[in-house]
């Protein structure tokens, strides 16, 4: 069996974003393996540990993505393919480029993050499934293989969840609760340096253009009420919400 995780590198949510020339400038920002992709990587490693076979990460993005790829390798993934492309490429166009490589790998299944922390997009997994003509299970919280050709999975819907049986190969996207990702160990990090990382240049044009990005932190009132007397503070808060903000 072969299990593929598709990953991306994104800004750490805690880092401060700045805008240069109308676009988000990631210079000086700490970049990490997307946390929802981390769940995908962990699940792929667990599937391999349970069922044997091989685990592979595939990433499409600029050179700097290599750091995130090395993190996945240090967690325990066997090898990596990096499709190198600079500049913004929308998820639908990315799916097209990724599908070609993944089809050639012929994996048992593919896992990726439910939503990417930079695009706030949920499209990559399902678009990839469409490009491969496979089914998709999004926001997966549980997965269990039933032999090599079928899996049972639980996943979130808009309201509630459902349990599905799906023929393999299929694409799954991750959701909180799926697992608890392991940390890369020092031997893991050392080993990762020697693992295969194949680079493939990609040229593709984006179907979507980003015209402008702005950070509009809503200016907040930041009115602090002294909480030493809880009853007085509560009354003052309710008064402000009623008379000043007029929201209750």
């Amino acid at each position: 069996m072969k299990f593929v995780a598709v990953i991306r590198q994104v800004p750490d949510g805690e880092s401060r974003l700045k805008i240069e020339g109308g676009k988000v400038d990631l210079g000086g920002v700490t970049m990490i393996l997307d946390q929802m992709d981390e769940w995908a990587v962990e699940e792929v490693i667990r599937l391999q540990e349970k069922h044997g076979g091989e685990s592979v990460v595939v990433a499409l993005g600029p050179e700097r993505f290599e750091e995130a790829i090395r993190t996945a390798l240090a967690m325990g993934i066997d090898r990596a393919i990096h499709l190198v492309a600079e500049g913004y490429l929308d998820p639908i166009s990315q799916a097209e480029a990724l599908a070609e490589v993944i089809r050639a790998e012929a994996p048992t299944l593919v896992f990726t993050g439910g939503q990417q922390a930079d695009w706030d997009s949920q499209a990559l997994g399902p678009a990839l499934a469409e490009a491969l003509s496979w089914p998709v299970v999004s926001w997966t919280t549980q997965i269990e293989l039933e032999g090599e050709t079928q899996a049972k999975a639980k996943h979130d819907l808009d309201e509630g969840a459902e349990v599905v049986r799906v023929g393999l190969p299929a694409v799954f996207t991750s959701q909180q609760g799926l697992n608890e990702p392991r940390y890369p160990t020092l031997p893991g990090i050392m080993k990762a340096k020697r693992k295969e990382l194949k680079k493939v240049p990609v040229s593709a044009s984006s179907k979507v253009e980003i015209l402008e990005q702005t950070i509009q932190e809503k200016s907040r009132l930041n009115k602090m009420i002294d909480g030493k007397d809880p009853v007085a503070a509560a009354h003052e808060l309710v008064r402000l919400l009623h008379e000043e903000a007029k929201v209750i």
Partner: protein
Amino acid sequence: MILVVLEHDGQRLRKGALEAISRARQIGALGAIAGVVIGENTQAVAQEAAQYLPTVYAAEVGSYTPEKWAEAAYAAAQKSGAKVVVATGGRQSRTWTARLAYKMKAGLLEDTLETSTDGQHIIGVRYSFLNRVTEKQKAALPVVFTAKPNTTPLAEPADSSGVVEALEVSLPPTVEVLERLSEQKKGVSLTEATVVVTGGRGLGNPEAFAGVEELASTLGAAVGATRAVVDAGWRPYSEQVGQTGKTVQPNLYIALAVSGAVQHQAGMNKSKYIVAVNKDAEAPIFKIADYGIVGDVHQVLPALIDAAKKLKD
């Protein structure tokens, strides 16, 4: 031609469908608008939709799977010759619209706050980077876009009623749904509420949520929870606000004993007014709060309930 995919509950159109129709009308310069109702009991829902649109297709394909929805929307787009497809945002919708965009070789604009056209492109505004950045995007036709819920006025019925047409869809192989686990619904829906009261782990134990519920019911609010609280099993996942939970944008968001991690902020930082109660004066939540009380939630919350009750009397 513009196609609107109309969300429904098997009986009636959902609010999101009426928002999507409004969005389609806003770009009406691109041509006539058709609608499609996909799923079960589509004929009846399509009759209701025909009060708004001149042509409504009814695609009877059974229960939801992203493959079936994408295929049915694709068939309707082909039949109507639509160059733009509009749908409501939401987890399910954002899954099948991605498949549809791929089928149509279309640009996909997800979860847009507003949309416009110059005749050749759709220009959309949306949030990115965990809701911290507002982004303007542009894509050449064909385009598929989803409208973020609660961003658009609801459509009014048209002057004259339209026609309903059954649409045959050849169904692709797909997932088999074994069991559907629905959420228990009580009180106000979290995503539609105008006031949300959220409790964090600082409450100390699940029993303390009785106070959160009491304040919420006094204010006609929905109850929210942080990820830590949900992970601890104190509250159901359906109440989680944040990156991997629900995104809310109420007039008033009250965060009780919530520290305010970035992932939580991604689900609530667009609220009109934010109130924070926390004993830690350094908690990040205070940086984005309009009103803050540094104090013990176990003392402040009962006092808040009293004060709110007095106001409502």
